[in-house]
């Protein structure tokens, strides 16, 4: 009868663990893991950032397509020994990660292109993150159904409440990742009065097809003509309107809030990560990125070609949210949203 001794089994297991550990360590030293969003964002990361990194180092980074909250969970699980070496986070998560000690401060001596990124794109993050690209939430309408869309946000909201568009409108929910920022923007329209904003949210509900939680869901509703008015990101809205002549995208007065992708280096990531960050912020990669994703970028030395300038939301039209205030208020806002807007 065949038998296996306990000692030999334990020895075998230890040998397997040790060899896999050595392999992981070896892998960690010559490879970095970076994150990107899916679709055209991933394509742009490959075409602009990875190509630059490969040119400089001769190495291929591993690209992980992942959402901000997922990345945060991974960073929190291994502080100081991150499984991701350059990440793109949401604005709020970047602030949280910096405060929780999960990030290294971005160092212009190690990523020289940081010097060309204006301070406004870094200040609120205490040097732990920089905006990589930004956009704004604007309005997209079905031009066949809505001939003269309201010129400003407050009129739009009042017309939704009055039922001008029927139940064919979709605004972002407070529960989607940029929902608190949109709520902050609305409070700025009503002199900082949160009560009015929640009253408006509630009053719009009967005429809201849905407060959207997923960008894909929102665009699908609009593309299927289930709705005629959609509050959506500018780059995607302009791209959609370019391909579908019945759609029109515009920025209501007095502008829109800034919605950004934050570039960070997790604490403990290898020095190779600086090269990738410097590549992301390099003029050539930034311009290529803007051309592919149709969102503004942050390197001040980049000059947009005319056809791009025409569709990118100008910085003057964009308000950067007060993230300190949002962090302080968002739990209360979420509670009000769940209790009142239903």
């Amino acid at each position, binding site marked *: 009868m065949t038998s296996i001794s306990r000692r030999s089994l334990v020895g075998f297991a230890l040998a397997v663990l040790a060899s896999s550990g050595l392999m992981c360590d070896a892998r960690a030293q010559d490879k970095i893991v970076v994150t990107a969003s899916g679709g055209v964002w991933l394509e742009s990361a490959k075409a602009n950032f990875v190509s630059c990194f490969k040119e400089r180092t001769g190495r291929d980074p591993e690209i992980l397509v992942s959402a901000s909250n997922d990345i945060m969970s991974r960073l929190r699980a291994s502080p100081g020994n991150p499984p991701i070496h350059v990440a793109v986070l949401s604005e709020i998560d970047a602030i949280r990660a910096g*405060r929780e000690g999960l990030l290294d401060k971005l160092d212009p001596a190690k990523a020289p292109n940081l010097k060309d990124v204006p301070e406004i794109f870094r200040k609120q993050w205490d040097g732990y993150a920089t905006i990589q690209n930004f956009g704004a939430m604007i309005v997209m309408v079905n031009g066949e159904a809505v001939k003269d869309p309201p010129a400003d946000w407050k009129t739009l909201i009042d017309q939704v409440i009055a039922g001008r568009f029927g139940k064919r409108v979709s605004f972002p929910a407070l529960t989607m*990742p940029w929902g608190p920022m949109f709520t902050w923007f609305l409070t700025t329209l009503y002199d900082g009065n949160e009560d009015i904003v929640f009253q408006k949210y509630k009053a719009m509900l009967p005429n809201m097809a849905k407060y959207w939680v997923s960008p894909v869901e929102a665009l699908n509703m609009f593309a299927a003509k*289930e709705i005629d008015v959609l509050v959506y990101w500018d780059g995607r809205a302009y791209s959609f309107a370019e391909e579908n002549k019945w759609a029109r995208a515009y920025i209501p007065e007095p502008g829109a809030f800034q919605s950004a992708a934050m570039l960070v280096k997790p604490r403990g990531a290898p020095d190779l990560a600086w090269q990738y960050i410097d590549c992301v912020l390099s003029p050539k990669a930034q311009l290529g990125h803007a051309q592919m994703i149709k969102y503004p970028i942050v390197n001040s030395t980049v000059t947009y070609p005319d056809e791009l300038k025409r569709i990118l939301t100008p910085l003057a039209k964009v308000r950067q949210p007060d993230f300190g205030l949002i962090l302080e208020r968002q739990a209360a806002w979420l509670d009000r949203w*769940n*209790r009142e*807007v239903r």
Partner: protein
Amino acid sequence: MAASIARDRWQPSAALAGPASLFLIGFFVGPLLLGVGVSLGVRHTSASATNLGIALYVRILTDIYYLEVMLATLLLALAVTAATLVVGYPLALAVSRARGATRTFLLFLIVAPLLVNVVVRSFGWMVVFGRSGLVNAALGLVGLPMIDILHSWLAVGIALVHVLLPFMVLSIASTLEGIDMTYEEAAATLGARPWRQFLHVVLPMSLHGAVTGCLLVFALCMGSFVTVMMMGDNRTMVLSLLVYQQLTVVSDWPFAAALGMVLLAMVMAIFWLQARIVRALAP
């Protein structure tokens, strides 16, 4: 000497149970204890750190809003379980009696929803239930008014029944297949009509499969939030969605952990109640 040899020998039963036990301790009991610890520990905010104790549990169990959400979660899971049982039982009977290609085809139809990603499946339902979707197009063809069921409890319920049906059908079908046909033949010989054969022979003998199916569907439904989020709206709130919101929107891990523990306690309570009822009904 003999004892020492025995110690060094591979003990198949202990060795086989070991990995599963370690897995459960590492990946179920461990995170569970961690969750309890987080819900009772310290909450850090930008301004302060607060010792929570049982404060979050008191908040959940004394706030009418959270009690409403708990009730809604429970009612949704019970309704979906009941609907899945009603739809699934005849289907399971058909599968267990079918043979050859028909059986393969039926099994494929039943398992098909599980092969599709939950988000894609939800978009499929939007195409069916939307204003210009299949249902309204069909109603329009026969001159009936449009209905608006997308983004409602009904839409959530239908989508959940669709995806959870395989768990019910496969549980019941496997029990039905184990029933010896000679029992039904004996009942028929004694003059029982097909309906009475089913009611007095097949149904009682398949109850264990139905109970297993109900437990699976109920537990899965209690934890479902993506379908609820995609098919519902602001009014369709369930406990698991609150957990998701607390984690992704405000990053409040202690409150999310406390809500998760309450959800787990609800499921365990229902399982306990169900076990008591089954034991009481057993002959």
